[in-house]
């Protein structure tokens, strides 16, 4: 049974507990100086397998009045925001009304590996360092990895990261806490979320649930991100704000990434064999012709080369 996670972005208040849980469970460092884990500049990195990215979107774009745009909700970036608000009101005198940021709400997006059903990273790896397990997680075996970084190029979501500063580096990414899943537990990040943004379960039933949710409540964007992207992913998202405004890549091919090369790879052995046969044929054919030609040339003794 293939597991998955349904992420309901409308419930996320940006507290960042999941990122803490991920770091603690997987033993990753805090590297805020070079890559923040929470906030507007948050980005995935070798030590950041998951991040919470903050977006400011126009109220008109957001379908719901969620907890996230109530500014008194306790969250990590709250403190800095109070002063921002203060600045904003001061600046009001200098800017015209159109520039005012009042009709703005916040949205938070949890990012991590999507655990594609047919992952590009797995089929791109020529050493089988990435493998998809039965339960759904796509995991990494550093012992096989050559460090060529083709996986970073092949992942349509740009998930795999690399330890550029290490003498002996590895590729890193969220592994969906595969050890916990094997023990029948939820991924660490899912289990700590105070507002139940994420739901862990069978991918297909989660998809059905998401469809029902979205079709019943028109305030949701009528798109389930991950249903078809890259041929379908184990992690799927629903949102009340258009995904393109939340930093989601929208031009992801609908067909599974491995299918781009599978025909090519399957025909190679045959093409190679046929080509070798043709070459051998040509070799003997032209060799004979050449012999005949040299004989005639010797007889006539006329052919001269410069």
């Amino acid at each position: 049974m293939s597991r998955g996670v349904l992420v309901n972005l409308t419930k996320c208040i940006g507290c960042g507990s999941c990122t803490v849980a991920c770091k603690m469970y997987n033993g990753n460092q805090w590297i805020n100086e070079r890559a923040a884990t929470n906030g507007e500049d948050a980005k995935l990195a070798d030590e950041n397998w998951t991040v919470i990215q903050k977006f400011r979107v126009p109220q008109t774009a957001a379908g719901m009045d969620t907890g996230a745009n109530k500014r008194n909700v306790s969250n990590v970036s709250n403190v800095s925001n109070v002063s921002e608000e203060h600045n904003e009101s001061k600046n009001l005198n200098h800017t015209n009304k159109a520039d005012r940021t009042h009709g703005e709400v916040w949205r938070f997006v949890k990012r991590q590996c999507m655990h594609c059903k047919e992952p590009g990273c797995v089929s791109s790896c020529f050493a089988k360092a990435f493998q998809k397990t039965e339960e759904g997680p796509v995991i990494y075996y550093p012992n096989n990895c050559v460090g060529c970084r083709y996986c970073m190029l092949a992942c349509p979501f740009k998930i795999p990261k690399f330890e550029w500063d290490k003498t002996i580096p590895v590729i890193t990414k969220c592994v969906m806490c595969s050890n916990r899943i094997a023990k029948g537990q939820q991924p660490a990040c899912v289990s700590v979320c105070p507002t139940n943004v994420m739901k862990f379960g069978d991918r297909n039933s989660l998809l059905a649930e998401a469809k029902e949710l979205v079709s019943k409540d028109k305030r949701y964007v009528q798109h389930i991100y991950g249903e078809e992207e890259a041929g379908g992913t184990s992690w799927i998202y629903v949102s009340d704000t258009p995904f393109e405004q939340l930093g989601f890549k929208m031009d992801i091919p609908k067909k599974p990434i491995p299918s781009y090369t599978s025909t090519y790879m399957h025909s190679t052995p045959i093409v190679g064999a046929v080509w070798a046969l043709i070459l051998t044929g040509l070799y003997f054919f032209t060799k004979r012709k050449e012999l005949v030609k040299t004989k005639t040339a010797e007889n006539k003794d006329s052919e001269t080369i410069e």
Partner: protein
Amino acid sequence: MDFNIEFKKWFIRISYDHWSFRITPLRFFLILLSLLTAVVLVYRFAFGLQSVSNLNDQWPWGLWKGWAVFAGAALAGGGYGTTFLVHILHIERLKLISHRTLLISLLGYTLMLVGLFTEIGRWFNFWRPYISWGHESALFEVFWCVSLYFIIQVLELGEIVTEKVFRQIHWFFVRFFPVFAVIGVMLPTLHQSSLGAIYLMTDGRLHPLWWSPLIFLFFLLSSLFVGPAMLVMESVLVGFAFGHKTPNDVLKILARIGGGMMILYLALKIGDLVVHNETGLLFEGSFESYAFIAEHLFGIVIPILIVFSPLINYRGWIITYGFLTSVGVFANRMNVVITGMIRDAGVIYYPTLCEVIISFGLVSTVLLIYLFLCENFNILLKNNDSCNPNTADGKPHGIAEK
């Protein structure tokens, strides 16, 4: 058996037994660059990729992949095209260049393998794909074909080398040469196209001017038509270094064959853009569109015009053709690896000085090895004379066979 250093006005000749090597000012510079590269390499292996390069999570592949792996393999590709013409189709007239193209190709692949080894993060694991088969990956095919082809090339070269040393096993190489030739054409055909197939998966990431479901075919064709052009470049080099002249008619035959393939290539490229409705991208005025137009105008269109006009009868124009085509294919690989990914990465990549030093340094080392081998082995075959050790102006430059 004696070691000897002669000081001449313009060069130093070092000789030992029957080996000899001249050190001219240019070669001295190449040696310096190679040594500098060795130092940078030690640093890279001690402190990791970030210490010497601008590669990062946005730019997992940069100058080294483009230069050593993609461009290097393409430019070295001339070898198998000539092997096909000379040893499979038995076109006798071209035989006198076969040793040279073989050697350029072998050295090009050496460059590629060393470059790759430098650039992969977990180099001590380089052998993993031999036992852990990720056979769905185009890179897997490249890896296997390149390693096997490397061995085949060494065996092909064995025929030349055993003319001078280990003569007792020369018969073996002569006897099995046809087998090497067939495999030695098949493997590179596969891997040149696989290098292109690597990028099939980057649909939506690589700029659509370069991404195409036919990208593997483009890589294959360009690796073939760049062969004659590289030979022209190399004949300029040996002409300069040894006064050895490659007959114009040989270069012309090859340039015409290459030119034919370039027309096919151009037609397919245009067809590909039309079918995918991407001709508009050519005029979007972006950096990518200019790079694409320049690549095809200077690297394909002008060379075709030269080859199929009377201009090809002039040596200067042949050289222009060779230069433009080689640079064009080089630019194509760089555009795929770097220019075409700028849009997707969202930030610009520029290589560090160390990346540039290593790139040029590896080429310098390869050039030095090439010059050494030319001076000491029977590489520069003269017209219809397979074992003439002398250069065109009659000065001996090596002892091929006594």
